[in-house]
């Protein structure tokens, strides 16, 4: 089983917080409001512990933006918010004059963009700091139970490992928790950690 050393966790937190900072400034520019985004917590779960209960999502239905990326290591990255939260975020982004009912039509579009901004910011921070190039698919948005979403993607990966990041997002002083999940194969995780090791040694 792979476990993370304290150095690994610190390095991951640093990388993802740099990504979060970039995402927050992009979001601020679009919305014209102050946006704060931070990643306070990173955890790794082995295959046997890839369960929805491990994620800080207290909801039967969640909105998920998902991108598959590849490069020196492959992973599926998925940003998750509870369904109600997702709607609130989109509403905050579009201004409060938009009603929830009206959102339905644009929810998918806007959530894809929000997820795309956060995921790309994290991936680009990773690419910059670890000195590598990553490719990615376009984002897809789905709403389902967290169990189903996890099952659905773990099936696609050989010996999967889950890396879960807690996310605090604040738009217009309203705070929202979500989580960013990376599902990697064990060999991809090893490859990823070797890049992290090189990054730590390089500091």
């Amino acid at each position, binding site marked *: 089983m792979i476990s993370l050393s304290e150095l690994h966790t610190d390095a991951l937190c640093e990388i993802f917080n740099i990504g979060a900072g970039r995402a927050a400034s992009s979001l601020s520019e679009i919305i014209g409001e102050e946006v704060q985004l931070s990643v306070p917590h990173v955890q790794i779960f082995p295959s046997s512990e890839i369960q929805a209960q491990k994620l800080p999502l207290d909801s039967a239905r969640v909105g998920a933006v998902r991108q598959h990326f590849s490069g020196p290591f492959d992973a599926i990255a998925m940003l998750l918010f509870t369904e109600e939260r997702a709607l609130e975020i989109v509403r905050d*982004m*579009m201004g409060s004059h938009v009603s929830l*009912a009206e959102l339905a039509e*644009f929810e998918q579009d*806007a959530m894809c963009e929000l997820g795309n901004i956060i995921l*790309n910011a994290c991936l*680009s921070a990773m690419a910059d700091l670890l000195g590598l190039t990553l*490719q990615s698919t*376009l984002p897809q948005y789905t709403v389902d139970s967290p169990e189903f979403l996890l099952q659905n993607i773990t099936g696609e990966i050989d010996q999967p490992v889950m890396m879960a990041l807690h996310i605090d997002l604040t738009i217009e002083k309203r705070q929202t928790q979500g989580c960013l999940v990376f599902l990697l194969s064990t060999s991809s995780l090893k490859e990823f950690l070797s890049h992290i090791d090189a990054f730590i040694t390089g500091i």
Partner: protein
Amino acid sequence: MNPATHVQNLVWNSIWNAINLGLILIDDQGVVVLWNDWVSEHSGITEKQAVGQTLESLFTDGLGASFKIAMQNALTYKLPVVLSSILHRSPLPLYPLPCTRKKQQARIHQSVSLTPIITPDGTHQCLIQITDTSVSFTREHMLKLHSKQLSIDATTDGLTGAYNRRYFNERFKAEFGRVNRQGTPLALLMLDIDYFKDYNDFYGHPAGDRVLIRIVELMKSQLNRTTDVVTRYGGEEFAILLPDCELEGARAVAQKIQHAMLKLNIPHAKSNAAGRVTLSIGIATHSVNSNCDAHLLLNTADTALYTAKHEGRNRIRYLLTQNEMSKDTAYLIDAGL
């Protein structure tokens, strides 16, 4: 090039131009490599003019800042970027057909995605796809108007324009809850037109309808705050909700309405209360300490109205709602009439 490849390329070229979607391919320097017919038609710039140029130099009349950043990110990090139509609306200067490129022509609503592509020789390019979302915007706008009208229809009385009983029930519940949460008082007025059946019988229903309309106008004109709610509670019965208002305020409103009725002076030959149309008004109030539920408050206001009727009509009566008060606590308020 062998003939089979040439034919295949022609087919791809036809598909590229037949697609009902804007497609632009740029190289890693942002220079246009391919430009499909859809983009030509909607931009007024031909493929010949576009190829070899940057998007900035082609779209001199405005490339959205968000688009420039997205393109920069896509080219730098080779990661795909989406720009949703709801957050960006029209990042590129593309117009409905026929495209005139005149400033007054409104841009089409767009949903844009940028996908990095690696060519066989290892260089990076970026495919820009543009979808016209104007149709869904128009549909959304229309649905919004319809839903606004429907929600007005569902909550108002068609004749008088006052809120209806359904709206009152919801609003009353909400305002009652607010008293308990925020500790602000709430006043409820129940009003009834005196001898209205006799008015209708004598002057006819169309005249009766006009009276209802004029009285609603009158009640609205006597209320100063946007939070005050006038509802048509039944046939000739009305309810007024006054949030954050105690007895003094409620009494002042009731008296203003009575004075205005006097000034309005609608003749009513069949009224035993006066020679004109008059109102009986019952008041009940609720504060956080009054140990009362919504049902009791409503009943109390109704009983106050009944008391006003019973004592000769064209008057205002107030009743305490507290459960502990005895039956003889009907407070008479001098309407000053």
